[in-house]
């Protein structure tokens, strides 16, 4: 097992672990606004860890660029949706 394989496996494990933590948090949280934080967190670090695993494995080839673009899209667009959802929750639950 080469150093690259170890790095890929580590990044993948950390990415999957991050997503798992967010899923457990979604299940454990009581309020919808708390759940938004876990849904938003899933779109940040774990997605880039998975993209980083692809980059380490493939170097800067087309699949690696695609994985980075997907991670960036998930981060940016997920943040926009999370903000819109949080605003909706604030209106409906807290009547702001």
């Amino acid at each position, binding site marked *: 097992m080469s150093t690259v394989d170890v790095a890929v496996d580590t990044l993948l494990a950390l990415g999957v672990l991050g997503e798992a933590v967010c899923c457990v948090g*979604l299940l454990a949280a009581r309020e919808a606004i708390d759940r938004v934080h876990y849904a938003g967190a899933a779109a940040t670090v774990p*997605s880039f860890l998975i993209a980083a695993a692809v980059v380490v494995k493939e170097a800067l080839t087309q699949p690696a660029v695609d994985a980075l673009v997907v991670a960036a899209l998930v981060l940016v667009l997920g943040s926009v949706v999370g903000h819109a959802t949080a605003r909706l929750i604030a209106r409906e639950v807290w009547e702001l």
Partner: protein
Amino acid sequence: MGREATALNAWLAAATAVLAGLVPCGAVALRGSRLDALVALELATTLVTLALVLLAQGFARPAYYSVALALAGLGFVGNLVFVRFLERGE
């Protein structure tokens, strides 16, 4: 697709683990309020998008990345549509 590509590798195992995260999302969507279900849908969109990346890498098919790219964009639009509908109270 060779035998090595179809065998279970770390990418496919990771994709399976990520897709298992859909179970909590489904539980929250079924049991929670409509706002809880919306948040669960957002997390499920993220999970499926990342699972498609992992599957594309696991099957060694770079063309499959297009599906993940499309879902990243279309999932955003779909979630925003749901937010707008709920804002209007429909």
